[in-house]
């Protein structure tokens, strides 16, 4: 990405994101119809599902960037991987918070150890471990190599989370989107869902830019500190 595009993204993304969020919440609360059986609590769906999709996307970015780092050895891929991992965790924590808040009035329980919920919690813990590992290793090259290995292996849980409600009988609802015959969304609900997805994706892009910038500064700081420290 050119420097000009990078700077333009920095200037435009906050405004685009704010506009998309306003439209998304307007559509979700004032235009989308209320679901017949669950009532208003179903509106949690519009933040829960897009957040889950964006966390999958973020962990996919970690996977690709980790592979690229191991193939090229360029630090920028490691910066991209850690940035995406942290943002993926932000979205995954939204999934794990909004899910139980929806489940309690609908199922009567906050949590159950079914395949979807358990594999999502495992996904969250994998990327917490990824960040903890990075903090524990001080040598940048060793840290990047170890983190890349975890970033690649950890991604294996994403298809398991996605397919869990297709492979196993779960308390979690069966797929509404891409779920085959009998599944699907009302066109008005689709509109709410797509606006939320666009707003959260724009937020992801903004976060990514800012987090990547932070990682670049950290790398510069570490390199200067190494130059300054007395050699044995």
């Amino acid at each position, binding site marked *: 990405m050119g420097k000009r595009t990078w700077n333009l993204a920095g200037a435009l993304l906050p405004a685009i994101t704010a506009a998309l969020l306003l439209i998304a919440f307007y559509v979700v609360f004032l235009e989308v119809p209320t679901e017949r059986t669950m009532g208003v609590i179903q509106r949690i769906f519009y933040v829960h599902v897009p957040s889950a999709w964006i966390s999958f996307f973020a962990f996919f970015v970690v996977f690709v960037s980790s592979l690229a780092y191991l193939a090229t050895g360029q630090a920028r891929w490691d910066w991209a991987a850690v940035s995406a991992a942290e943002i993926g965790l932000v979205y995954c924590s939204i999934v794990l918070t909004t899910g139980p808040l*929806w489940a309690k009035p609908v199922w009567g329980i906050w949590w159950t150890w079914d395949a979807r919920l358990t594999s999502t919690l495992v996904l969250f813990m994998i990327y917490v471990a990824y960040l903890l590992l990075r903090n524990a290793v001080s040598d940048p090259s060793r840290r990047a190599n170890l983190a890349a290995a975890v970033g690649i292996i950890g991604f294996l849980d994403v298809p398991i989370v996605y397919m869990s409600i297709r492979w196993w009988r779960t308390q979690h609802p069966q797929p509404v989107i891409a779920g085959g015959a009998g599944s699907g969304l009302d066109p008005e609900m689709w509109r709410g869902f797509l606006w939320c997805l666009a707003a959260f994706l724009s937020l992801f892009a903004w976060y990514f830019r800012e987090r990547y910038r932070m990682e670049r*500064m*950290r790398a510069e700081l570490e390199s200067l500190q190494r130059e300054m420290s007395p050699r044995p």
Partner: protein
Amino acid sequence: MRNLFWAYAAVWLIHLGYLFRLASGQKKLSDDLAALKKSVVERER
């Protein structure tokens, strides 16, 4: 209804918390970097 409120409140709080983490993290790194560059210049003198 109460859970719907808390779900959307949680979404906002998590995002605001992360924005704060990004802003404070960038400021700290930028201050540390400026201080280190200054000490490099002073050492070279």
